[in-house]
């Protein structure tokens, strides 16, 4: 399988930011069902800063860029989303230090480090109905794609499908973390906004890589 180039990696980050901004109201509506309705606005406030400062960031490597994004998200995203999304970009940023292209194996290692970091930061586990479950679905899909030696765009298509599916898989689960967990069994049958966001972002990323 071919490697992901720096241009493609930058496209992925830009697509994540665009998805967060385009879905600000929708993500907050999802959060209003069981949470405090601020997820969309919190996430958008962080990614607005990322977009505004994009040109000033260090583009010398994929890792350097992700670390700049991590700082911006941590400092400008409200609530618990700041440290969670900041850690996602920080752990991948550290893993991708000095790299201007990435193999799928390296991407998997970076995301696994991010999942571990988010667990440590917020105390959540897999199965708690958080965005970790969607990220885990993505990692498992990448592993299957690596095994099957499909093309890079195909690997991203498969991951998008897996992330998108995780919203349905987890819908019947009880939320164990964050504000949604305060509602206990009432969270059964609702979508977790973080999981939905990862699914929507993964779909947008796959489409952007195909279109580029």
């Amino acid at each position, binding site marked *: 399988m071919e490697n992901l180039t720096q241009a493609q990696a930058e496209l992925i980050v830009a697509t994540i930011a665009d998805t967060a901004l385009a879905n600000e109201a929708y993500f907050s509506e999802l959060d209003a069902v069981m949470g405090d309705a601020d997820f969309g606005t919190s996430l958008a406030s962080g990614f607005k800063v990322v977009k505004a400062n994009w040109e000033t960031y260090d583009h010398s490597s994929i890792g350097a860029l992700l670390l700049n994004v991590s700082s911006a998200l941590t400092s400008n995203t409200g609530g618990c989303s700041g440290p969670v999304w*900041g*850690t996602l970009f920080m752990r991948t940023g550290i893993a991708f230090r000095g790299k201007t292209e990435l193999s799928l194996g390296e991407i998997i290692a970076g995301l696994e480090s991010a999942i571990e970091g988010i667990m440590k930061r917020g105390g959540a586990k897999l199965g708690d109905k958080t965005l970790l479950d969607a990220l885990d679905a993505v990692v498992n899909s990448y592993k299957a794609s690596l095994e099957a030696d499909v093309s890079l765009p195909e690997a991203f298509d498969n991951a998008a499908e897996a992330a998108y599916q995780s919203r349905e898989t987890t819908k019947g689960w009880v939320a164990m973390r964050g504000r949604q967990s305060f509602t206990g069994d009432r969270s059964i049958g609702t979508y977790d906004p973080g999981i939905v966001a990862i699914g929507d972002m993964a779909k947008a990323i796959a489409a952007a890589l195909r279109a580029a």
Partner: protein
Amino acid sequence: MKKFVNDPENFVHDMLEGVYLANQDKLRWVREYNIFYRADLPSDKVLIMQGSGSGHEPAHSMIVGPGMLDASCPGNVFAAPPMDYVLECTKILANPKGVIHLINNYQGDRMAWDMAKELAEAEYPDLKIGVVIINDDVAVQDSTWTVGRRGVAGNFFIIKALGAASEQGKSVEELVALGEKVNSYTRSMGVALSSCTPPAKGSPIFEIGDDEIEVGVGIHGEPGRRRDKIRPASEIVDELFEAIYTDLPFASGDRVAVMVNGLGGTPISELYLLYGLVAKKCAEKGLAIAKNYVGNYCTSLEMAGMSITLSKLDDEIEGYLNAPAEIPIRVF
């Protein structure tokens, strides 16, 4: 609201500028990240830093100096420092002996410091960073911004002990152990007579009646144990003292340091009136006061109120409290 302020959004920057201009020989200021560090930053000892929010002055940006903090990186008023403030400050202090992160136990602070530590360690694989979490407030178990107890005015004792011990060449491991010991020996509780107004917010952080007090208030105006009516000072001291004394527990014969800390809007006359009452309580319980501290150490802007801290001493800690220190806030 009446305050001495220009642009309220720049309140912290403008305050730090004043501190810097008054102490240019002693401090270096990194404007972008609210960082103060010692102009004579030592290169042969573990360096100590603390961040926390602004609005608690003199903690922490006004207590940078020999024998106290080597650097501070406060966030906005009552807000944890952003992760990059902590990271930049850690980078300035990075040295072969190591760095200590002193963190008051609030979720926002802990996450920002935790991330900054991870990033600093990724950048400097050989850098030793020790962490001490401060949680001296006995008032409430969990609060608006914490899992577990809050870190309040008792942080002074950890800073003072670690500042002195680091000057004497202690290692990161020894300093972490000392910090944990002093924290475990230190208990505080506060009471508010009034609210306070962060400049950029423009309105009081909570409402309180003219005849009401908040017992067990946090240093960001978080709720304490209960709202009560104002009572004679001796009754208020009795309640706070009992809560603190029984929590450790302290015992007859213990040597202690006592702090009566003003929250910003209570005059020193009232603080000494309160100290007299606390001293009598200590005598009643057989506690020997080896050191006393009366004044504004950890405030909540202009809030009227106070907190009492008792810190149990042993010879090691007492030695560190008596060691010399020099900070920008001075009366002569």
